[in-house]
């Protein structure tokens, strides 16, 4: 399999050959930053387009069809519209926090996004507490949402933000628990390492029952974490018009919108990395010919294939179920997911201790 670090090494040696070390690293950091932002934007556009088409298909519709062939240019047109729209300042709002909030949300989202290992050797932030950093970074987003709701000087926004706070902080817990289940199995938190360990079988197969339960819990909690249906009550449009981002317009709204979709992708990407082997191809022990063929498919195809498959499943959830009520969401979390997650963790520990996994 092609190792992307060869490319990065080559660039590094090229730059250091005629520049001092510090300047070279600085330039590399800048370049990577630009790449990350670019990838972020592209993923957002793909996600929005996918959402619209997938949702349409579930609803017996065609979705956008007018702009470009099969509506492919539609999202670009939307982004363009969003960019040229006026950013409206609300009277009596807390101006500083109001303008700050979308950037906190997008910052959290980009930080988490940078942790994802896209392909072999293609990791931006990769260190020994990778998962820990990822969960920490992604949960900063809730601060932005709370600030947005508070500073908008709108009662709908405030209710939306409060719901969102209660919900996201609760679901953080079972998300952490399900990730912990896999960490027990791998004994590492470094994302690249986790992927490497799945060379002989993805964790969802290796960890069998507890891994599968953890996967399901992770999907539910992750879905709640990004405020998507059936857990979309912070922005429940039939109750709170648009929840915490009611008062935002133009690109400020766009940042919330984009962050929501990329967060969904991040959730799917993490699920793909941790449970489905990330960029690691499907290997079946004993079938060497098959394994070699699988190895010819580049890593990022595997990664994006798995991630978008998980995204599709999450969209399937969203477009099937009605919305829960706030008390039901908390019941689901504290009475079902947390106890089950804890038991599951215990089960995984037992399995690891007695070496019952594959």
């Amino acid at each position: 399999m092609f190792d992307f670090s060869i490319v990065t090494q080559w660039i590094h040696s090229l730059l250091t050959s005629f520049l001092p070390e510090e300047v070279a690293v600085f330039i590399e950091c800048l370049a990577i930053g630009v790449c990350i932002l670019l990838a972020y934007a592209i993923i957002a556009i793909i996600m929005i387009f996918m959402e619209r088409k997938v949702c349409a298909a579930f609803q017996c519709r065609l979705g956008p069809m007018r702009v470009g062939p099969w509506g492919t240019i539609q999202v670009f047109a939307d982004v363009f519209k969003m960019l040229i729209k006026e950013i409206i300042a609300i009277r009596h709002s807390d101006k500083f926090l109001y303008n700050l909030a979308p950037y906190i949300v997008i910052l959290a989202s980009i930080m988490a996004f940078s942790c994802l290992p896209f392909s072999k050797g293609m990791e931006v932030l990769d260190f020994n507490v990778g998962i820990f950093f990822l969960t920490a970074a992604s949960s900063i987003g809730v601060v932005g949402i709370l600030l947005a709701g508070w500073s908008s000087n709108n009662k709908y926004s405030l209710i939306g933000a409060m719901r969102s706070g209660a919900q996201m902080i609760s679901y953080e817990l079972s998300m952490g628990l399900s990730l912990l289940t896999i960490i027990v199995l791998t004994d590492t938190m470094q994302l690249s390492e986790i992927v490497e360990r799945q060379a002989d079988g993805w964790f969802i197969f290796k960890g069998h029952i507890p891994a599968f339960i953890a996967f399901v819990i992770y999907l539910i909690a992750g879905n709640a974490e990004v405020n998507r249906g059936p857990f979309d009550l912070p922005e429940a449009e039939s109750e709170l018009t648009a929840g915490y981002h009611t008062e935002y317009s133009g690109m400020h709204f766009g940042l919330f919108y984009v962050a929501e979709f990329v967060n969904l992708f991040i959730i799917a990407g993490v699920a793909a990395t941790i449970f489905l082997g990330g960029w690691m191809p499907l290997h079946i022990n004993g079938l060497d010919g098959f394994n070699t063929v699988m190895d010819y498919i580049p890593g990022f195809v595997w990664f994006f294939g798995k991630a978008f498959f998980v995204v599709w499943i999450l969209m399937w959830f969203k477009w099937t179920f009605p919305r829960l009520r706030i008390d039901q969401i908390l019941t689901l979390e504290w009475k079902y997911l947390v106890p089950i997650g804890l038991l599951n963790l215990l089960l995984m520990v037992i399995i690891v201790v007695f070496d019952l996994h594959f």
Partner: protein
Amino acid sequence: MITIEPEKIHKALSDLRAEGYDFLRSLTGMDWGEEGLGVVYHLEKTTTGENKVIKTITANRENPELPSVCDLWKAAEFNEREAYDFFGIHFIGHPDMRRLYLREDWVGHPFRKDYDDSLNPLRMTNEEPDDVTHHYEELPDGSVIEKRDVLFDEDEYIINIGPQHPATHGVLRFRVSLEGEIIKKLDVHCGYIHRGVEKMCESLTYPQTLALTDRLDYLGAHQNRHALCMCIEKAMGIEVSDRVQYIRTIMDELQRIDSHLLFFSCLCMDLGALTAFFYGFRDREKILDIFEATTGGRLIQNYNTIGGVQYDIAPDFVQKVKEFIAYLRPMLKEYHEVFTGNVIAHGRLDGVGILSREDAISFGATGGTGRASGWACDVRKRHPYAMYGKVDFKEIVRTEGDCFARYMVRMEEILESMHIIEQLIDNIPEGPFQEKTKAIIKVPEGSYYAAVEGSRGEFGVFLESRGDKHPYRLKFRSTGLPLVSIMETVCRGAKIADLIAIGGTVDYVVPDIDR
């Protein structure tokens, strides 16, 4: 019609209430010109189905005062506000004498025959929000004083739901006082789509008034128009042919299916299941196509006329209807699988917004809402009209009175409606589809009431005629007004999300409330 003096009316009505007349079908404000202003009460005993019509007149045009009957029937609360709004009658003892439809700064009362239109030019300023209401109280010495009440305190957390809000299904406005997520108090503001249909009717000829009924409850357009046609035909003594009766019945039932499908779709959308919403609309489209082929309209059909229907049925009508019924049955199963059985839907609907049977009757909340609370209030069974006396169908009644019961009543009514259509569709008799009527239709002097079972309850028409070609007073008993009046009772203590579920299952249509 029995006339009782204003001094004795409250005593007489409370005697009737004690006798078992527990359902106030309709309360109509009237202006009889020289004789004075007054109110007509339509009462019904729910146990036996007996009806009584009582009227009362006060000769005092300057400062008309009548006792309120809010304490006897809760339905009177909104209806008396409407009568105050339109006629300026002060109801003594009514707790909240605000205008119901018109702006607070409206001058005069438009339904009075001496009303001057020029007093109310088009105002371009905003209506000043006012959290103060007033009521009239009678002192022991017989004099009447006006007292002011505060609706919401300054430090209450009040949110506006509506008039522009995705879940109010139109321009209805609720002001909701919240304690966290819990609703402490709810205040309904109507009138954002008030068009003065009843007032307009007073200057239109009878055929012209028909066109407006379709625009009240647009999901019960056929039934509304059916009621008005029935009322005028009854007054004029026109007998319509059996063919017309069959067609009208089938159309009414198709309209009911149409309305209930839309109810299902919108409820799903309110609860966030947007996909089910599209399934409902996809299938409703087929009914609209059937309507379009026969009536030429999809939403506003203009089909019933005085003495018949506008056109004979389209040549492929029978076949299309049969195909549709065959198509809808498996689809209903699909709805139940995707939404009804769903554990989240159950969680959102079970035990939420319970309306007791007593309240349902007292508020006059008919239709699916009343039947879900255990009140068998179907006009088709109580006072059969058209073909309903001759077909076999079951009245769906449930006893829980919660959102889920209201939902299930309507879903099961779709099946019953299909059953009714199946009995009629194959044997529509031959006959004229339109009776001959005079060129200028004049209704003989008198007052008439006719009611049909609309898509969401009893739709009644009260017509007072003085023998002209215009009605003297035409009052539509709205199906939606009792339904919004129960909202305060049902929603108190529920959560905001429940308000949406309750609003969805109560299933009001705003143009029908506001008229």
